[in-house]
């Protein structure tokens, strides 16, 4: 789960990391009022779950409140990588002397939270890693010991030469680790971590992604989910216990299992179509889940054909077939539906589907080809 910059800064502040003050505005009036209160130059920053906000024009320097009003008015409602800006953060502009990068993520190879720091902040860290890998220092945190003081210092030593800055930065590094762990994060970064002309170290931008598996035990973090910042269909899918990702194509996919769902999307593409979504309904034959899945898929006006790809394993095919039939009775569906059903009790399942008037297949390739053809209509 992504959280906004201002929320990540709240998490940082809880851990003691120095972040500038800031407030959220949802209208240009509010932005102007906040800037007036600060009474200094401010930044107006789009709050969306997307990188590249700056390049998209979503981050602006404002000399005064009227400029803040103007920029906020432009940014609010702006589309950034398909997401509409609903909120801006208004925060005093800082004098920047240097910009560094400090990030933590879960490293699969070392099986541990891993720091990446660079004195070259303010740019995409992947680019730094690709072009000047010697400008990055990495450290995996042994989960048995946590981040040790000398390790925090070792990272800070890579960023600065001045002992006073090193001391502040090593504190920030340790606090960032605490924030990472206590937020149940899978990724967090400060980019840039700045120094000011009077020698202060501050986090002026913040990113954090939460491990969805942590939410059950972190109600405070779970409460940070911004439903306005994600498509309604994904909210609905999550609430129904489905994994769903909206895409741009016109073949709606409904599959049991994440790997099979991806392979199905790939096969749609292979046969010249474009998948409209990723959707994993899991191992259940429960008609309610199928109903939710169909409602979500059909809420996408692009969808021209719906493709079920179900592998009956522990769940028997006849159960799954009954679930699908039952679900499609409950709602009206316009696009044509084709169903592939195979595995345990396959014949029985196919019979149930065909009796209910569905095009039923046993081969994944056949059903995908058919769905692509129908979508091209």
């Amino acid at each position, binding site marked *: 789960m992504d959280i906004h910059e201002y929320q990540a800064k709240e998490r940082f502040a809880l851990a003691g990391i120095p972040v500038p003050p800031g407030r959220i505005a949802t209208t240009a009036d509010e932005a102007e009022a906040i800037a007036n209160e600060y009474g200094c130059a401010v930044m107006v920053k789009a709050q969306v779950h997307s990188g590249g906000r700056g390049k998209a024009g979503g981050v602006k320097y404002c000399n005064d409140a009227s400029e803040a009003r103007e920029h906020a008015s432009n940014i609010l409602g702006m589309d950034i990588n398909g997401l509409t800006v609903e909120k801006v953060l208004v925060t005093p502009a800082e004098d920047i002397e240097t910009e560094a990068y400090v990030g933590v993520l*879960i490293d*699969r*190879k070392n*099986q*541990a*939270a891993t720091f990446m720091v660079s004195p070259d902040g303010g740019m995409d860290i*992947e680019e730094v890693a690709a072009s000047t890998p010697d400008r990055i220092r990495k450290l995996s945190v*042994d*989960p*048995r010991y946590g981040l040790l003081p000398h390790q925090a210092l070792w990272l800070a030593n890579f960023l600065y030469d001045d002992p006073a800055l090193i001391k502040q930065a090593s504190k920030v590094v340790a606090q960032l680790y605490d924030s990472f*762990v206590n937020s*149940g994060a*899978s990724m967090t970064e400060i980019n840039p971590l700045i120094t000011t002309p009077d020698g202060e170290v501050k986090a002026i931008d913040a990113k954090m992604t939460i*491990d*969805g*598996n*942590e939410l*059950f*035990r972190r109600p405070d973090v779970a409460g940070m989910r911004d439903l306005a910042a994600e498509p309604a269909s994904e909210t609905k899918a999550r609430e129904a216990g489905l*994994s769903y*990702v909206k*895409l741009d194509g016109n073949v709606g996919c409904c*599959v*049991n*299992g*994440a*790997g*099979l*769902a*991806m*392979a199905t*999307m*790939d*096969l*749609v*593409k*292979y046969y010249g179509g474009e*998948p409209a979504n*990723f959707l*994993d309904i899991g191992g259940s034959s429960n008609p309610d889940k199928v109903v939710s899945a169909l409602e979500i898929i059909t809420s996408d006006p692009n969808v021209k054909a719906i493709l079920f790809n179900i*592998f*009956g*394993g*522990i769940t028997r095919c006849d159960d799954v077939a009954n679930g699908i039939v039952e679900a499609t009775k409950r709602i009206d569906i316009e696009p044509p539906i084709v169903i592939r059903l*195979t*595995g*345990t009790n396959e014949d029985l399942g196919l019979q149930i589907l065909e009796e209910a008037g569905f095009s039923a297949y046993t*081969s*994944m*390739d056949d059903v995908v080809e058919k769905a692509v053809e129908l979508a091209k209509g």
Partner: protein
Amino acid sequence: MSIFIDNDTRLVVQGITGRDGSFHTGQMMEYGTQVVAGVTPGKGGQIFEGPNGETVPIFNAMDEAVAQTGANTSVVYVPPAFASDAILEAVDSGVSLVVAITEGVPVLDMARAHAFAGDRGVRILGPNCPGLLSPGKSKVGILPAQIVTEGPIGVVSRSGTLTYEAVFQLTSVGLGQTTCVGIGGDPLIGTNFIDCLEAFEADPETAAVVMIGEIGGTDEQEAAAYVQANMSKPVVGFIAGQTAPPGRQMGHAGAIISGSAGTAEEKMKAFQDNGIAVAQRPADIVGLIQDTLA
């Protein structure tokens, strides 16, 4: 032969009294797995009844279960909030393999659990995996028994139903399996492709291996290099997620392209560069395997 589990596998089921635990215990017993104990704290002394009336004793704790039944393998069906505790308990109990089926375990919990298992030399499979099945010998987890048959192919996969798909196709043409292993879709897993490839290479009955990967991470790339450097047996590969957008989690917590890293393209290239035949569609796997065995 087979890898990781066989006729000597003596299984304890953690969370045996739960909905999933009890259902799959029945399925495993039906298949012939030696389920020797169950564990549910507070239900020690009760009995689990198998599908054919066999009884399995339930214990309060893993140490008792292992001490009293000689179990050497555990399978975890405990809900996510308690799953890593159950895994640590299993690692500490003396079994040599812990199969963690549970989906939704916090990744930092698993970082600790993997370190703990590493300290003790215990293998964890998973979490968020379907388990493994050595046809004709033992089934640990949730893989459907109907689709497998004995034979010379090793199957290792990050996915569940996609594996069933591949295994079903192999079985349909008479290509049986030594062991089918689902290593799980989480970012931090206890047993990776290389562990399985190494075991298949060492298993005299395995003639060829099917390796099914997906987007996210670099496990497949490292496995490909391993195959090139260390394997004499042919490997056929498939990668799911060519059409997955970057930055979005595709069901599995681990199935996510980070920036430009972990794409299907890069993994398929790594396979090709290291002598692994790549199936473009799941339906091509069988043909490629038949070619390698021809």
